[in-house]
């Protein structure tokens, strides 16, 4: 706070507010344009003006004509994202618990996770594809694709768990043990419920990052495309608003996941009467 709580806003506040508003417009403006354009009339094109309003292009997605294997890739992406979400949650939580103690190789694994985060996705894919080629394994979305996605979601999961455990008071566990809880009860009755907001954040990252993944997927999902790859392919050959309709559908799914996660976190914190605490702030994590 650069001025007292009751003071008048300085000029810099208004300038920065303007910058912020412009940035938000920059962030959301183009996106909103394609949501609107996806409702283009049947004769409409890739840009304004709107020639009527219709669901024509959404319908075109389900017809098999020019838009490729929409339903198949859509189902694959959702299933893969759910599997990645579940695995990210379990693996990150277990690793988070492990990192609270000292063990040999901790630093190495930590740096491997950070390297996984910074590594260009194309190279992860290339490497996996090369291993497959040498070993004679056919890349499949539920095998190599899954592994490639995990290299992207797990570092985020791990960093969120670090942030969450940092704020987790160990005396909760000791209190539970003192009150007769077994190891399993400490986990299920104390650690998991207390960490719930952070775990939901991990799940959100697991789902959305997998659902939208491109760079690691191109060489690892095999013959059957996931949704983002389908869209990527469409950008090269589809020049109708069907592309935008697909964008609207897939973004709606993402927003649904975000809304469910954030509302659940908000409900938990409100129930606990802890108000807006940073522990419930899922975006505190991508650092």
């Amino acid at each position, binding site marked *: 706070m650069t001025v007292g709580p009751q003071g008048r806003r300085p000029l810099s506040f208004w300038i920065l507010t303007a910058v912020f508003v412009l940035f938000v417009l920059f962030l959301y403006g183009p996106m909103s344009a394609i949501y609107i354009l996806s409702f283009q009339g049947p004769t409409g094109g890739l840009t304004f003006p709107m020639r009527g309003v219709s669901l024509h292009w959404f319908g075109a997605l389900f017809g098999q004509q020019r838009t490729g294997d929409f339903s198949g890739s859509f189902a694959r992406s959702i299933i893969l994202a759910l599997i990645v979400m579940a695995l990210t949650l379990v693996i990150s939580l277990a690793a988070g618990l492990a990192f609270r103690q000292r063990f040999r190789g901790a630093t190495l694994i930590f740096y491997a996770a950070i390297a996984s985060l910074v590594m260009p996705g194309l190279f992860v894919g290339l490497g996996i594809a090369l291993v497959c080629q040498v070993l004679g394994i056919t890349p499949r979305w539920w095998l190599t694709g899954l592994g490639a996605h995990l290299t992207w979601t797990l570092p985020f999961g791990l960093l969120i768990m670090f942030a969450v455990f940092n704020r987790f008071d160990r005396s909760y566990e000791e*209190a*539970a043990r003192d009150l007769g809880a077994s190891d399993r009860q400490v986990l299920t009755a104390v650690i998991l419920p207390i960490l719930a907001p952070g775990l939901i954040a991990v799940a959100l990252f697991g789902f959305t990052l997998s659902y939208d993944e491109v760079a690691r997927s191109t060489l690892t999902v095999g013959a059957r495309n996931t949704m983002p790859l389908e869209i990527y392919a469409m950008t090269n050959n589809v020049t109708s608003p069907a592309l935008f309709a697909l964008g609207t559908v897939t973004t709606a799914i993402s927003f649904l996941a975000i809304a469910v996660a954030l509302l659940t976190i908000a409900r938990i914190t409100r129930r606990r009467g802890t108000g807006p605490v940073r522990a419930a702030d899922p975006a505190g994590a991508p650092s």
Partner: protein
Amino acid sequence: MTGTERRGDVALHEVTKRFGPTLAVDRVSLTIPHASYCCLLGPSGCGKTTILRMIAGHEEPSSGRILIGGQDVAGLVPAQRGTALMFQSYALFPHLSVRDNVAFNLRMRGVPREQRHREADRMLELVRMTAFADRMPAQLSGGQQQRVALARALITNPRVLLLDEPLSALDEFLRLQMRSELKRLQTDLGITFVHVTHTQPEAIALADLVVVMNQGIIEQAASAREVYARPRSPYVARFLGGQNVIMGKVRDQDGRHALLDGPGGALFRVPLHERRPRPGEPVWFAVRRDLIHLARAGAGAVTAENSLEGLVEAVEYQGSFVKVTLATATGEEFLVNEPEAAFFASPVARGDRALASWQPDQVHLLEPDRAGAGGSPSLTAAA
């Protein structure tokens, strides 16, 4: 824990705890009688919390034995020891209501919902928190949270209640209120309380047994009156306050008294009891602040045995008495608590010279500190 023997006496035998290279607790032996209120008193880092956590079973001793009710508790998990720990931060589960927090132990033991809620409500009544049963911990004040933590610990029906700095997070008013409430509970329940604190008045007010700790060892374990009036060592005298600690080197002794050379040419005569110090040996003794006679310079003061001359550094009015701080040749602050009337009969002011003197039979002889070197003045707890 519904054993036939419900004795809550705690015994430590030569208990040592190391954390890597650091020695947190060094061969401590201590017996806390059943149904007594024991305070572990000392500055932070003295090992008192480690002892508490070892009794609770959250740390295992590196060596030595701990017995509760005569039973060796090595390897027992916390819940099997018949102890309950109240955490400094209270550690109330943020996702559970007050009632569910209190009922947690019963839930872990598989007690049906109805019954455990009934039990919890009974405990909440004991700590006068019935009205808050459905609140979440975050919606309670510090004092209320503490009552809930107390109820949660007591529902396990412990024979020993362990309290880690239970009053430190409360404001002054609540602290005094909770202090007397803790004492009341301990008397009513007739179980052993072990209470860790770094505040001397808290320990004096509550404890049947005060254990003064320093650097991982016990300096003195005795009744409150004993540690206050008859501190064993310079460290205890300084930490408990109310005393001036003075050192002199033995010039001469006749078996009953010794004559000590003090700083700045002062001479002290102290009663020896069983001690027989050799000439030249340093001897520490304490004189209570309220048993010192203060004479104004120029009022016929004569430098004699058992007196120190000094410059008045500060005068603080304390209500029933006046606290006068002298700078003397001892290098430590020398404090005199003069009764109000006596002080104002002939007041002194900052900058005056004054002479403090005392009777030889009011001197209390000290043994050297067990931990570290004898005379470090760094831990003075000026009250």
